[in-house]
């Protein structure tokens, strides 16, 4: 039996215009298939993360704080209510890093699958966007689960609290896109993860008004919060989940800051991916 009895040839069956229009979705589809292989791990992390943090710090430390503030809590609400939106945004950002940094290093360096994608009609832009979309899907999954855990803990106290899911996704997407661009630049990743985790992620987590209002910090450390997507997302999250007071100017600032970062990260990723593949 000949293997190619009905061979029609690529000139008949391949439509380059279709790939040009929908290529990013084909990459997303492939990344999703790979991600589904460890869906149980992702689900486990997505549930365990909020439960552990909200119980240990939210309830544990929270009981101590609430008692010492004469039942006033922080920012006019119980400590766990104050803390939860910050943890939601943190989880979104961590998920985005997982789904943007690792696949990018893998695609360019470890198993070089970006190069195999690029030998099809797919371009660097499609590949960058596919990785980005996949990361947004993962972040959305994480944020939705986190939000339901928050609901179970009774820390959502506003009719528009559900919108906090989207501000967390926005922060995750923005941070993920930036990290994706950065990972695309790396020729050598030896110390990258150590530096990223210890000198970027950890300080952001600690100094973005996560555990106490940013204004409690000395003024010379507050800038960390200002450049941190986490702080901007946390402020928006607090506004949405329990009515934390924000001026409309700051509301716009947070929103514009996160979206500018997102846009910058996506454009940079596309350029960096295209340039590196074309070398």
């Amino acid at each position: 039996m000949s293997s190619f009895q009905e061979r029609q040839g690529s000139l008949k069956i391949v439509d380059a215009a279709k790939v040009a229009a929908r290529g990013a979705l084909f990459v997303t589809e492939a990344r999703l298939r790979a991600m589904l292989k460890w869906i149980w791990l992702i689900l486990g992390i997505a549930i365990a993360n909020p439960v552990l943090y909200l119980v240990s710090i939210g309830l544990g430390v929270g009981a101590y704080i609430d008692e010492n503030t004469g039942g006033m809590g922080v920012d006019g609400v119980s400590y766990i209510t104050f803390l939860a939106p910050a943890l939601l945004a943190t989880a979104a950002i961590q998920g985005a890093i997982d789904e943007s940094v690792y696949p990018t290093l893998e695609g360019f360096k470890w198993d070089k699958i970006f190069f195999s994608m690029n030998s099809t009609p797919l371009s660097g832009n499609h590949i960058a966007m596919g990785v980005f979309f996949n990361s947004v899907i993962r972040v959305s999954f994480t944020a939705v689960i986190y939000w339901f855990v928050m609901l179970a803990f009774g820390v959502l106290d506003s009719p528009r609290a559900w919108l906090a899911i989207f501000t967390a996704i926005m922060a995750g997407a923005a941070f993920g896109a930036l990290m994706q661009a950065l990972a695309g630049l790396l020729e050598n990743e030896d110390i990258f993860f150590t530096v990223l985790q210890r000198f970027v992620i950890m300080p952001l987590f600690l100094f973005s008004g996560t555990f106490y209002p940013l204004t409690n910090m000395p003024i010379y450390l507050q800038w960390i919060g200002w450049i941190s997507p986490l702080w901007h997302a946390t402020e928006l999250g607090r506004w949405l989940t329990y009515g934390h007071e924000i001026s409309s100017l700051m509301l716009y600032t947070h929103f514009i800051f996160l979206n500018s970062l997102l846009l910058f990260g996506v454009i940079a990723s596309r350029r960096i991916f295209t340039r590196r593949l074309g070398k």
Partner: protein
Amino acid sequence: MTQSLIHARGLTKKFGDFTAVNGIDLDVVKGESFGLLGPNGAGKSTAMRMIGATSQRTSGDLTILDKDPEQFGPQIRAHLGVVPQQDNLDTHLTVSENLYIYGRYFGLSRKFVKNKIEELLAFAQLEEKRNAKVESLSGGMKRRLTIARALVSEPEILMLDEPTTGLDPQARHILWDRLFRLKEDGVTLLITTHFMDEAEQLCDRLVVMDKGSIMAEGSPAQLIKDYSTKEVLEVRFGSERNAGMADDLRQLCDRIEELPDRILMYTEDGEELLERVYKKNFHPKTSLVRRSSLEDVFLRLTGRTLVD
């Protein structure tokens, strides 16, 4: 009408000061099996990546399927099947998933790809491995899967970069058999290799490359005829005596090549030459008469062997 699917004139690629490909001319016609033969570092892979419309040329002209890859990269790649030197399969996915997603990258419908997978699994003799993870496959299986993957879109041109490097002899022969069948089906093949037997087996026509340039072009038989004699007598006198014997042996034939471990004597009739060697009372430790190969052509052109 013979139409060049691949047409290059003065094709050049520089990386900084280093010239990887130095002004090569190529014409590959439809249905042909064309080879780039040369040692590692000759510029074959760089040439392949330019023809594969992923790496942009520094200068020269290049058209693939009548299109310039600088402007029409994706439109050209839509009709190429690329088998890179290193298998870059998606290691998270199974054998059939690798074929599936690759078909999707060409925008092929799910239904088409699903049918195609069966055909390709049979072609690559991987039916029983369809649900195996790529990591668990042997080198030969991965190679066959990478080739099968490149065929999912029924490409006009199949480009293979060192298709059998790292494979054992049996796996090589299975692969060669598969490539023959593709050629019979009218697929144009572009192959790089540093194995002369592979080039002789698979290529209708080839260019010999060294240090980024083309040294010679023709069919394997024509190249051997042009650059070598019909037969070769290989003699070994032991490493100390080889060098001392060279001058004496030179008198007996058209041309000799001294290699570290043996001396090659070029002649139309190897057995007759060996008799004359013995008559002169030169007694090699071992001797072997064989037909000339592309290895000899390369040695003649560059003074070096293909595989160090």
